[in-house]
């Protein structure tokens, strides 16, 4: 595989960039694979990559209904963090942070991981205490966290509302300095390119129609491009999990919901960090292109439509202006919607299933992007070894039956309240 480097970029410039290789090929599906991963999103592509890299399993197909990276990895707000209270989430995500830090070099693809720090603003002492509980938990798990007072927050983000005319004054905030953002498409493409180079078949425009299961074992899948045999199949289609689960007669503790996000027109740099509002649900960062990237609440009803309604964005942006009044003068350039697997405790599932050889990776709510490397890594391990890794042991499917829930927000099963 061609190496991407400044040297090669210059070299290719003199041949008009006509000699670059394909980033990934476009193979026709083979009859049989050792492992089939359904879903060519970030998690699916990462899983295939780690299957090849960590477990030397390269006879792998990724089956994608549309185009790779077209789901939530291509329509998120690119935030990467491990600022969780619960051990399961914290340790899993922090493992992922390590993978993020070396991802560009590992994939030889600049994913632009940028540890610009995330600040969760607090608007009361009670909230400061709740953040302290989370931050202390992070620190005891070896994750960086700093509790900022009002003055410290003001120093970092003076454009937030520190005026008198504010409904919920800023008391302080919890910061994870090592959190940040990355270029979302590049993550999908980088994993795809490396997986492809190690022999993984990336098969786009191929829809899964059904599964072949016999005697409690998975035997293969049926697709719009023919049947494919495999003794191991991983489902990795957050947003559409329930549609595939139905084909397997499974009902899952997941609902599919719609989340919108938007960007402003590009402006010169004004905000370095990722900031979240504490008296509501709003988050913002500024992309390298200069756009303010903003999001917040779900639209709040089951939906597979990748299109939302304006009142939700109005509500989200209201909180945005409450936090940073200067946003008012900007213009909203682009909006989009993505569909989420909202799990019943807000945490994901990476587990084996009752069908031998069938593995499930789902329930990412709106935290899937940052989990891409750790999810791929642990899912690859789970598939390759046919047992969960200790990092994803907590993300079991049966925790809903046993009561070992991982509920960061304490909101329970009303998944549409975010």
């Amino acid at each position, binding site marked *: 595989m061609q190496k991407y480097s400044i040297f090669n970029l210059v070299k290719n410039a003199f041949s008009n960039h006509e000699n670059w290789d394909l980033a990934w090929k476009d193979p026709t599906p083979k009859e049989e694979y050792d492992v089939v991963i359904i879903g060519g999103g970030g998690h699916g592509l990462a899983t295939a990559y780690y299957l090849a890299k960590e477990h030397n399993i390269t006879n792998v197909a990724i089956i994608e209904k549309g185009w790779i990276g077209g789901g939530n990895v291509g329509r998120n707000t690119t935030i990467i963090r491990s600022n969780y209270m619960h051990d399961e989430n914290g340790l899993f995500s922090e493992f992922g942070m390590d993978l993020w830090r070396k991802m560009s070099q590992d994939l030889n693809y600049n994913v632009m991981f940028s540890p610009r720090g995330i600040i969760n603003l607090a608007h009361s002492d009670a909230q400061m205490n709740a953040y302290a509980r989370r931050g202390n938990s992070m620190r005891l798990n070896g994750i960086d966290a700093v509790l900022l007072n009002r003055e410290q927050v003001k120093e970092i983000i003076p454009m937030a509302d520190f005026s008198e005319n504010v409904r919920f004054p800023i008391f302080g905030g919890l910061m994870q300095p090592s959190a940040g953002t990355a270029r979302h498409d590049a993550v999908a493409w980088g994993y795809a390119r490396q997986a492809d180079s190690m022999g993984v078949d990336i098969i786009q425009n191929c829809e899964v129609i059904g599964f072949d299961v016999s005697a409690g074992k998975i035997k293969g899948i049926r697709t719009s491009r023919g049947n494919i045999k495999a003794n191991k199949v991983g489902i990795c289609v957050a947003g*559409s999990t*329930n*549609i595939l689960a*139905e084909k397997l007669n499974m*009902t*899952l*503790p*997941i*609902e*599919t919901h719609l989340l919108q996000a938007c960007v402003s027109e590009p402006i010169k740099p004004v905000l370095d960090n990722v900031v979240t509002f504490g008296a509501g649900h709003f988050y913002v960062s500024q992309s390298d292109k200069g756009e303010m990237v903003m999001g917040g609440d779900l639209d*709040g*009803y*089951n*939906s*597979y*439509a990748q299109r939302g*309604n*304006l*009142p939700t964005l109005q509500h989200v942006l209201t909180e945005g202006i409450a936090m940073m009044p200067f946003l008012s003068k900007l213009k909203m350039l682009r909006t989009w919607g993505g569909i989420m697997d909202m799990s*019943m405790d807000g945490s994901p599932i990476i587990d084996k299933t009752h069908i031998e050889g069938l593995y499930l990776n789902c329930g990412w709510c709106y935290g899937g992007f940052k989990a891409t490397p750790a999810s791929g890594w642990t899912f690859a391990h789970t598939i390759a070894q046919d047992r969960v890794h200790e990092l994803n042991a907590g993300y079991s499917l049966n925790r*809903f*039956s046993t009561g070992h829930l991982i509920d960061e927000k304490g909101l329970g*099963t*009303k*998944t*549409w309240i975010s």
Partner: protein
Amino acid sequence: MLYINCPHCGMRSQNEFSYGGDASVKRPDLNKEIPDKEWDDFVYNRKSLRGKHLELWQHISGCRQWIKVERDTATHEIFRTFKADEEFA
């Protein structure tokens, strides 16, 4: 913004309502032995399919009645709405 026909009040915009999830989920009866699976299906497991979806909304800024709505989760089209005590045909 969805436009919902409250069977008690008439057409109203969605911002008068709050969502209540899958209406096909039935609470098991009280004072009855309930197997784990049945209870989990009630509390946690949802079909949440693409297409027609029977769901609950409460007209919270209106008559406060819980109503049933048949809506397409792919297009958001609403086909029918019912009062709480009406069954879907």
